[in-house]
Protein backbone atom coordinates (compact mmCIF):
# COMPACT_ATOMS: atom_id res chain seq x y z
CA UNK A 1 0.00 0.00 0.00
CA UNK A 2 2.42 2.62 1.20
CA UNK A 3 5.39 0.65 -0.02
CA UNK A 4 7.24 2.45 -2.75
CA UNK A 5 7.71 0.80 -6.08
CA UNK A 6 11.49 0.84 -5.65
CA UNK A 7 11.40 -1.05 -2.37
CA UNK A 8 9.04 -3.62 -3.87
CA UNK A 9 11.44 -4.08 -6.79
CA UNK A 10 14.37 -4.59 -4.38
CA UNK A 11 12.39 -7.07 -2.32
CA UNK A 12 11.47 -8.93 -5.48
CA UNK A 13 15.13 -9.12 -6.54
CA UNK A 14 16.09 -10.44 -3.11
CA UNK A 15 13.33 -13.05 -3.20
CA UNK A 16 14.40 -14.18 -6.65
CA UNK A 17 17.90 -14.66 -5.27
CA UNK A 18 16.47 -16.89 -2.56
CA UNK A 19 16.94 -14.38 0.23
CA UNK A 20 14.27 -14.91 2.90
CA UNK A 21 14.39 -11.21 3.66
CA UNK A 22 13.00 -10.55 0.20
CA UNK A 23 10.07 -12.90 0.80
CA UNK A 24 9.49 -11.27 4.15
CA UNK A 25 9.50 -7.77 2.63
CA UNK A 26 7.07 -8.82 -0.10
CA UNK A 27 4.76 -10.33 2.48
CA UNK A 28 4.90 -7.26 4.67
CA UNK A 29 4.23 -4.96 1.72
CA UNK A 30 1.23 -6.83 0.36
CA UNK A 31 0.02 -9.20 3.06
CA UNK A 32 -2.59 -6.94 4.61
CA UNK A 33 -4.05 -6.05 1.21
CA UNK A 34 -4.26 -9.68 0.12
CA UNK A 35 -5.94 -10.73 3.35
CA UNK A 36 -8.28 -7.73 3.17
CA UNK A 37 -9.25 -8.53 -0.38
CA UNK A 38 -10.01 -12.15 0.54
CA UNK A 39 -11.94 -10.98 3.57
CA UNK A 40 -14.01 -8.64 1.39
CA UNK A 41 -14.63 -11.49 -1.01
CA UNK A 42 -16.18 -13.36 1.91
CA UNK A 43 -13.90 -16.40 1.89
CA UNK A 44 -14.24 -18.77 4.82
CA UNK A 45 -10.71 -18.41 6.23
CA UNK A 46 -9.15 -15.20 4.90
CA UNK A 47 -5.88 -15.47 6.86
CA UNK A 48 -5.35 -19.12 6.04
CA UNK A 49 -6.11 -18.56 2.39
CA UNK A 50 -3.81 -15.53 2.34
CA UNK A 51 -1.05 -17.77 3.63
CA UNK A 52 -1.81 -20.25 0.86
CA UNK A 53 -1.66 -17.47 -1.71
CA UNK A 54 1.79 -16.38 -0.59
CA UNK A 55 3.10 -19.90 -0.34
CA UNK A 56 1.90 -20.57 -3.86
CA UNK A 57 3.37 -17.32 -5.15
CA UNK A 58 6.75 -17.75 -3.49
CA UNK A 59 7.10 -21.36 -4.59
CA UNK A 60 6.46 -20.43 -8.21
CA UNK A 61 8.31 -17.14 -8.17
CA UNK A 62 10.81 -18.50 -10.68
CA UNK A 63 8.01 -18.60 -13.26
CA UNK A 64 7.17 -14.94 -12.77
CA UNK A 65 8.73 -12.29 -14.99
CA UNK A 66 8.32 -8.60 -14.33
CA UNK A 67 8.89 -5.85 -11.81
CA UNK A 68 7.24 -5.07 -8.49
CA UNK A 69 4.15 -3.55 -10.09
CA UNK A 70 3.60 -6.64 -12.19
CA UNK A 71 4.18 -8.75 -9.11
CA UNK A 72 1.22 -7.14 -7.40
CA UNK A 73 -1.01 -7.96 -10.34
CA UNK A 74 0.31 -11.51 -10.43
CA UNK A 75 -0.16 -11.94 -6.67
CA UNK A 76 -3.76 -10.68 -6.74
CA UNK A 77 -4.50 -12.87 -9.73
CA UNK A 78 -3.54 -15.84 -7.53
CA UNK A 79 -5.68 -14.41 -4.72
CA UNK A 80 -8.59 -13.79 -7.09
CA UNK A 81 -8.46 -17.38 -8.36
CA UNK A 82 -8.12 -18.68 -4.79
CA UNK A 83 -11.27 -16.77 -3.80
CA UNK A 84 -13.15 -18.23 -6.77
CA UNK A 85 -12.01 -21.74 -5.80
CA UNK A 86 -13.06 -21.12 -2.22
CA UNK A 87 -16.52 -20.00 -3.35
CA UNK A 88 -16.84 -23.11 -5.48
CA UNK A 89 -15.86 -25.36 -2.60
CA UNK A 90 -18.35 -23.67 -0.33
CA UNK A 91 -21.11 -24.14 -2.87
CA UNK A 92 -20.35 -27.85 -3.07
CA UNK A 93 -20.49 -28.59 0.60
CA UNK A 94 -21.98 -27.15 3.71
CA UNK A 95 -19.34 -26.45 6.28
CA UNK A 96 -20.34 -27.11 9.83
CA UNK A 97 -18.44 -25.19 12.44
CA UNK A 98 -18.84 -26.51 15.93
CA UNK A 99 -19.22 -24.17 18.85
CA UNK A 100 -15.88 -25.26 20.28
CA UNK A 101 -14.12 -24.52 16.99
CA UNK A 102 -15.36 -20.94 16.84
CA UNK A 103 -12.45 -18.48 16.89
CA UNK A 104 -11.55 -17.17 20.31
CA UNK A 105 -11.77 -13.42 20.36
CA UNK A 106 -11.34 -13.01 24.06
CA UNK A 107 -9.48 -9.94 25.20
CA UNK A 108 -10.91 -7.53 22.62
CA UNK A 109 -12.78 -4.34 23.34
CA UNK A 110 -16.48 -5.16 23.05
CA UNK A 111 -17.47 -1.66 21.91
CA UNK A 112 -14.71 -1.48 19.34
CA UNK A 113 -15.53 -4.95 18.08
CA UNK A 114 -19.20 -4.08 17.86
CA UNK A 115 -18.49 -0.84 15.99
CA UNK A 116 -16.15 -2.60 13.60
CA UNK A 117 -18.71 -5.30 13.05
CA UNK A 118 -21.42 -2.73 12.26
CA UNK A 119 -19.12 -0.87 9.88
CA UNK A 120 -18.20 -4.13 8.22
CA UNK A 121 -21.84 -5.07 7.87
CA UNK A 122 -22.74 -1.68 6.44
CA UNK A 123 -19.97 -1.84 3.86
CA UNK A 124 -21.00 -5.37 2.95
CA UNK A 125 -24.62 -4.25 2.45
CA UNK A 126 -23.53 -1.36 0.24
CA UNK A 127 -21.27 -3.61 -1.81
CA UNK A 128 -24.10 -6.06 -2.26
CA UNK A 129 -26.03 -3.58 -4.38
CA UNK A 130 -23.23 -3.55 -6.95
CA UNK A 131 -22.92 -5.98 -9.77
CA UNK A 132 -20.25 -8.66 -9.27
CA UNK A 133 -17.89 -7.00 -11.74
CA UNK A 134 -18.42 -3.55 -10.25
CA UNK A 135 -17.79 -4.95 -6.80
CA UNK A 136 -14.70 -6.81 -7.96
CA UNK A 137 -13.28 -3.71 -9.63
CA UNK A 138 -13.88 -1.53 -6.58
CA UNK A 139 -12.39 -4.11 -4.22
CA UNK A 140 -9.24 -4.43 -6.31
CA UNK A 141 -8.95 -0.69 -6.75
CA UNK A 142 -9.76 0.32 -3.16
CA UNK A 143 -8.86 -2.60 -0.92
CA UNK A 144 -5.99 -4.09 -2.92
CA UNK A 145 -4.85 -0.63 -4.06
CA UNK A 146 -4.25 -1.78 -7.61
CA UNK A 147 -4.11 0.60 -10.54
CA UNK A 148 -6.57 0.41 -13.42
CA UNK A 149 -4.00 -1.48 -15.49
CA UNK A 150 -3.27 -3.95 -12.68
CA UNK A 151 -6.98 -4.48 -12.07
CA UNK A 152 -7.52 -5.12 -15.74
CA UNK A 153 -4.70 -7.67 -15.69
CA UNK A 154 -6.13 -9.50 -12.71
CA UNK A 155 -9.66 -9.66 -14.09
CA UNK A 156 -8.62 -10.31 -17.65
CA UNK A 157 -10.58 -7.28 -18.86
CA UNK A 158 -9.66 -4.31 -20.96
CA UNK A 159 -8.48 -1.00 -19.56
CA UNK A 160 -11.57 0.91 -20.69
CA UNK A 161 -13.90 -1.77 -19.39
CA UNK A 162 -12.38 -1.42 -15.93
CA UNK A 163 -12.69 2.36 -16.15
CA UNK A 164 -16.36 2.02 -17.03
CA UNK A 165 -16.97 -0.52 -14.29
CA UNK A 166 -15.46 1.73 -11.60
CA UNK A 167 -17.45 4.75 -12.76
CA UNK A 168 -20.71 2.84 -12.68
CA UNK A 169 -19.83 1.14 -9.46
CA UNK A 170 -19.29 4.49 -7.75
CA UNK A 171 -22.55 5.78 -9.17
CA UNK A 172 -24.41 2.76 -7.82
CA UNK A 173 -22.78 3.30 -4.46
CA UNK A 174 -23.92 6.89 -4.37
CA UNK A 175 -27.48 5.88 -5.14
CA UNK A 176 -27.38 3.29 -2.39
CA UNK A 177 -26.13 5.91 0.05
CA UNK A 178 -28.88 8.30 -0.98
CA UNK A 179 -31.53 5.71 -0.35
CA UNK A 180 -29.82 4.80 2.93
CA UNK A 181 -30.39 8.31 4.30
CA UNK A 182 -34.06 7.56 4.81
CA UNK A 183 -33.22 4.49 6.86
CA UNK A 184 -32.01 4.91 10.46
CA UNK A 185 -28.50 3.55 10.83
Amino acid at each position, binding site marked *: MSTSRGSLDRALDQARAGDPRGFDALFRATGAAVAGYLRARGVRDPEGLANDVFVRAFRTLDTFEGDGERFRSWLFTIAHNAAIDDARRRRRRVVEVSFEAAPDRAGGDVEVDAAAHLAHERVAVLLSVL*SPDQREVLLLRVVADLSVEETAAVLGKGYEAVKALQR*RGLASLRRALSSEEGVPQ
Partner: protein
Amino acid sequence: MSADGVHGNEMDEPHDFDDAAADALIGGAGADIDRRVAETLGEMRAAYVSTPPAVGATLAALIGAAPPVAPRAVRRSERVRSSVLAKVGAAAAAVVAATGGLAVAGALPAPVQDAVSHLGVGSPAHGSGDKDVKHGDTNGDDRTPTSHGKGSTTSAAGSETSTTTHKDNHGGDVSGVAHDPTLEGCAHGQAVAAVASGGKSQGKSCPTTTTTVASGNGQPGATTTTTTVDHGGHGQGNGSNNGKGNSGGAQSHGKGH
Protein backbone atom coordinates in the same frame (compact mmCIF):
# COMPACT_ATOMS: atom_id res chain seq x y z
CA MET B 1 -21.88 -9.90 -20.53
CA SER B 2 -19.99 -8.20 -23.34
CA ALA B 3 -16.47 -8.94 -24.50
CA ASP B 4 -15.23 -6.35 -22.01
CA GLY B 5 -17.04 -8.10 -19.21
CA VAL B 6 -19.66 -5.42 -18.84
CA HIS B 7 -23.05 -6.55 -17.65
CA GLY B 8 -25.91 -5.83 -19.96
CA ASN B 9 -27.75 -3.48 -17.66
CA GLU B 10 -24.63 -1.52 -16.69
CA MET B 11 -24.71 0.49 -19.93
CA ASP B 12 -28.14 1.77 -18.95
CA GLU B 13 -26.98 3.21 -15.61
CA PRO B 14 -26.21 6.90 -15.45
CA HIS B 15 -22.54 7.91 -15.47
CA ASP B 16 -22.46 10.24 -12.50
CA PHE B 17 -18.70 10.41 -12.27
CA ASP B 18 -16.13 11.02 -14.94
CA ASP B 19 -12.80 9.18 -14.90
CA ALA B 20 -10.95 11.94 -13.04
CA ALA B 21 -13.59 12.09 -10.30
CA ALA B 22 -13.64 8.31 -9.99
CA ASP B 23 -9.84 8.16 -9.72
CA ALA B 24 -9.90 10.92 -7.10
CA LEU B 25 -12.52 9.17 -5.01
CA ILE B 26 -10.76 5.82 -5.20
CA GLY B 27 -7.42 7.49 -4.40
CA GLY B 28 -8.91 8.90 -1.18
CA ALA B 29 -8.94 12.55 -2.31
CA GLY B 30 -12.53 12.95 -3.45
CA ALA B 31 -14.24 14.30 -0.36
CA ASP B 32 -15.05 17.53 -2.19
CA ILE B 33 -16.60 15.55 -5.03
CA ASP B 34 -18.86 13.40 -2.88
CA ARG B 35 -18.24 13.26 0.83
CA ARG B 36 -20.44 10.23 1.53
CA VAL B 37 -18.92 8.13 -1.19
CA ALA B 38 -15.43 9.13 -0.12
CA GLU B 39 -16.18 8.20 3.51
CA THR B 40 -17.68 4.90 2.47
CA LEU B 41 -14.60 4.01 0.45
CA GLY B 42 -12.49 4.90 3.48
CA GLU B 43 -14.62 2.62 5.64
CA MET B 44 -14.15 -0.11 3.09
CA ARG B 45 -10.36 0.17 3.40
CA ALA B 46 -10.51 0.24 7.19
CA ALA B 47 -12.91 -2.68 7.41
CA TYR B 48 -10.88 -5.05 5.30
CA VAL B 49 -7.24 -4.00 5.23
CA SER B 50 -6.60 -3.03 8.84
CA THR B 51 -5.27 -6.35 10.07
CA PRO B 52 -2.42 -8.19 8.36
CA PRO B 53 -2.65 -11.98 8.33
CA ALA B 54 -0.89 -14.15 10.88
CA VAL B 55 2.04 -16.08 9.45
CA GLY B 56 1.46 -19.82 9.30
CA ALA B 57 4.14 -22.46 9.72
CA THR B 58 4.57 -23.15 6.00
CA LEU B 59 4.87 -19.50 5.10
CA ALA B 60 7.15 -18.87 8.06
CA ALA B 61 9.53 -21.50 6.74
CA LEU B 62 9.68 -19.67 3.42
CA ILE B 63 10.15 -16.14 4.69
CA GLY B 64 12.45 -17.15 7.54
CA ALA B 65 10.14 -15.88 10.24
CA ALA B 66 9.42 -17.83 13.35
CA PRO B 67 5.79 -18.77 13.76
CA PRO B 68 4.18 -17.06 16.72
CA VAL B 69 4.81 -18.94 19.94
CA ALA B 70 3.27 -18.06 23.24
CA PRO B 71 5.95 -16.89 25.68
CA ARG B 72 6.85 -19.52 28.28
CA ALA B 73 5.72 -18.55 31.71
CA VAL B 74 8.56 -18.56 34.22
CA ARG B 75 7.57 -20.42 37.32
CA ARG B 76 7.94 -18.76 40.66
CA SER B 77 10.13 -21.61 41.94
CA GLU B 78 12.58 -20.95 39.07
CA ARG B 79 12.70 -17.27 39.89
CA VAL B 80 13.30 -18.01 43.60
CA ARG B 81 15.99 -20.57 42.75
CA SER B 82 17.77 -18.11 40.51
CA SER B 83 17.62 -15.46 43.18
CA VAL B 84 19.02 -17.77 45.88
CA LEU B 85 21.83 -18.97 43.64
CA ALA B 86 22.75 -15.40 42.83
CA LYS B 87 22.88 -14.47 46.51
CA VAL B 88 24.95 -17.53 47.46
CA GLY B 89 27.36 -16.84 44.63
CA ALA B 90 27.77 -13.23 45.67
CA ALA B 91 28.37 -14.22 49.29
CA ALA B 92 30.98 -16.81 48.30
CA ALA B 93 32.77 -14.30 46.11
CA ALA B 94 32.80 -11.79 48.97
CA VAL B 95 34.26 -14.37 51.40
CA VAL B 96 36.99 -15.37 48.94
CA ALA B 97 37.89 -11.78 48.27
CA ALA B 98 38.01 -10.88 51.96
CA THR B 99 40.03 -13.98 52.89
CA GLY B 100 42.46 -13.32 50.08
CA GLY B 101 43.01 -9.77 51.19
CA LEU B 102 43.57 -10.78 54.81
CA ALA B 103 45.90 -13.56 53.72
CA VAL B 104 48.06 -11.20 51.71
CA ALA B 105 48.14 -8.87 54.67
CA GLY B 106 49.01 -11.76 56.96
CA ALA B 107 46.16 -10.89 59.25
CA LEU B 108 44.51 -14.27 59.39
CA PRO B 109 44.82 -16.63 62.37
CA ALA B 110 47.86 -18.85 62.10
CA PRO B 111 46.09 -22.09 61.05
CA VAL B 112 44.04 -20.28 58.43
CA GLN B 113 47.07 -18.38 57.24
CA ASP B 114 48.97 -21.62 56.83
CA ALA B 115 46.07 -23.16 54.96
CA VAL B 116 45.73 -20.33 52.49
CA SER B 117 49.48 -20.16 52.05
CA HIS B 118 49.19 -23.61 50.52
CA LEU B 119 47.08 -22.01 47.87
CA GLY B 120 49.74 -19.45 47.14
CA VAL B 121 47.97 -16.62 48.85
CA GLY B 122 49.85 -14.75 51.52
CA SER B 123 52.71 -16.07 53.63
CA PRO B 124 52.41 -18.77 56.26
CA ALA B 125 52.06 -17.88 59.89
CA HIS B 126 55.35 -17.16 61.62
CA GLY B 127 56.74 -18.83 64.71
CA SER B 128 55.07 -22.15 64.25
CA GLY B 129 58.35 -24.00 64.55
CA ASP B 130 58.75 -27.42 63.08
CA LYS B 131 55.35 -27.26 61.46
CA ASP B 132 56.48 -24.39 59.33
CA VAL B 133 59.66 -26.16 58.40
CA LYS B 134 57.64 -29.08 57.27
CA HIS B 135 55.57 -26.79 55.08
CA GLY B 136 58.69 -25.56 53.45
CA ASP B 137 59.69 -29.02 52.42
CA THR B 138 56.32 -29.97 51.17
CA ASN B 139 55.78 -26.78 49.30
CA GLY B 140 59.02 -27.20 47.52
CA ASP B 141 57.63 -30.30 45.92
CA ASP B 142 54.15 -29.16 45.23
CA ARG B 143 54.63 -25.69 43.91
CA THR B 144 53.77 -24.84 40.42
CA PRO B 145 55.67 -22.14 38.55
CA THR B 146 52.74 -19.81 38.99
CA SER B 147 53.24 -19.74 42.72
CA HIS B 148 55.13 -16.84 44.13
CA GLY B 149 57.91 -16.68 46.65
CA LYS B 150 58.95 -20.28 46.47
CA GLY B 151 62.10 -21.26 44.81
CA SER B 152 64.59 -24.01 45.11
CA THR B 153 64.12 -25.63 48.44
CA THR B 154 66.69 -27.74 50.08
CA SER B 155 65.14 -30.58 51.92
CA ALA B 156 66.34 -32.04 55.16
CA ALA B 157 68.47 -34.41 53.17
CA GLY B 158 69.99 -31.48 51.38
CA SER B 159 68.69 -32.44 47.99
CA GLU B 160 67.12 -29.99 45.62
CA THR B 161 63.49 -30.93 45.45
CA SER B 162 61.99 -28.24 43.28
CA THR B 163 62.75 -27.28 39.75
CA THR B 164 61.02 -23.99 40.14
CA THR B 165 63.49 -21.15 40.18
CA HIS B 166 62.78 -17.69 41.44
CA LYS B 167 65.02 -14.83 42.20
CA ASP B 168 63.18 -14.39 45.44
CA ASN B 169 64.26 -17.66 47.00
CA HIS B 170 65.22 -16.26 50.32
CA GLY B 171 62.71 -18.20 52.36
CA GLY B 172 63.71 -21.47 50.78
CA ASP B 173 67.36 -20.83 51.38
CA VAL B 174 66.81 -20.02 55.01
CA SER B 175 64.61 -23.04 55.44
CA GLY B 176 67.27 -25.26 53.97
CA VAL B 177 69.93 -24.06 56.35
CA ALA B 178 67.55 -24.28 59.24
CA HIS B 179 67.05 -27.95 58.51
CA ASP B 180 70.67 -28.77 57.94
CA PRO B 181 71.36 -31.65 60.36
CA THR B 182 75.08 -31.09 60.22
CA LEU B 183 74.79 -27.85 62.10
CA GLU B 184 74.06 -27.61 65.73
CA GLY B 185 73.77 -25.08 68.42
CA CYS B 186 75.31 -21.68 68.08
CA ALA B 187 76.87 -22.46 64.77
CA HIS B 188 73.47 -23.53 63.47
CA GLY B 189 71.89 -20.30 64.62
CA GLN B 190 74.64 -18.20 63.14
CA ALA B 191 74.38 -20.00 59.83
CA VAL B 192 70.66 -19.46 59.70
CA ALA B 193 71.03 -15.84 60.71
CA ALA B 194 73.67 -15.29 58.10
CA VAL B 195 71.45 -16.67 55.37
CA ALA B 196 68.39 -14.90 56.67
CA SER B 197 70.14 -11.55 56.80
CA GLY B 198 71.77 -12.01 53.48
CA GLY B 199 75.22 -12.03 55.05
CA LYS B 200 74.65 -8.89 57.03
CA SER B 201 74.50 -10.64 60.30
CA GLN B 202 77.62 -9.78 62.28
CA GLY B 203 77.27 -12.29 65.02
CA LYS B 204 80.04 -12.74 67.41
CA SER B 205 81.81 -15.95 67.91
CA CYS B 206 79.92 -18.69 69.55
CA PRO B 207 79.99 -18.67 73.37
CA THR B 208 82.47 -20.63 75.31
CA THR B 209 81.08 -22.75 78.00
CA THR B 210 83.23 -23.52 80.97
CA THR B 211 82.07 -26.24 83.17
CA THR B 212 83.60 -26.74 86.49
CA VAL B 213 82.70 -29.82 88.30
CA ALA B 214 83.66 -29.89 91.89
CA SER B 215 82.84 -32.12 94.68
CA GLY B 216 81.94 -30.14 97.69
CA ASN B 217 81.42 -30.81 101.36
CA GLY B 218 82.90 -34.15 101.10
CA GLN B 219 79.66 -35.51 99.99
CA PRO B 220 80.14 -38.06 97.37
CA GLY B 221 78.39 -37.32 94.17
CA ALA B 222 77.85 -33.71 95.03
CA THR B 223 78.84 -31.57 92.12
CA THR B 224 78.80 -27.89 91.41
CA THR B 225 78.42 -26.92 87.83
CA THR B 226 79.13 -23.41 86.70
CA THR B 227 78.28 -22.49 83.22
CA THR B 228 79.34 -19.26 81.62
CA VAL B 229 77.60 -18.35 78.48
CA ASP B 230 78.72 -15.62 76.15
CA HIS B 231 75.69 -14.26 74.38
CA GLY B 232 77.58 -12.73 71.55
CA GLY B 233 76.86 -13.92 68.07
CA HIS B 234 73.41 -15.31 68.59
CA GLY B 235 72.35 -14.71 65.06
CA GLN B 236 70.47 -11.46 65.33
CA GLY B 237 69.99 -11.26 61.61
CA ASN B 238 66.58 -10.71 60.19
CA GLY B 239 65.27 -14.16 60.07
CA SER B 240 61.78 -13.01 59.32
CA ASN B 241 62.40 -12.61 55.67
CA ASN B 242 59.78 -11.69 53.20
CA GLY B 243 60.14 -14.84 51.23
CA LYS B 244 57.47 -17.43 51.40
CA GLY B 245 59.76 -20.02 52.94
CA ASN B 246 59.85 -21.08 56.53
CA SER B 247 61.66 -18.14 57.88
CA GLY B 248 59.76 -18.42 61.13
CA GLY B 249 61.47 -21.64 61.87
CA ALA B 250 64.76 -20.19 60.82
CA GLN B 251 64.37 -17.34 63.24
CA SER B 252 63.74 -19.66 66.12
CA HIS B 253 66.76 -21.65 65.20
CA GLY B 254 68.82 -18.49 65.02
CA LYS B 255 68.33 -17.92 68.70
CA GLY B 256 70.80 -20.62 69.42
CA HIS B 257 70.56 -23.27 71.96
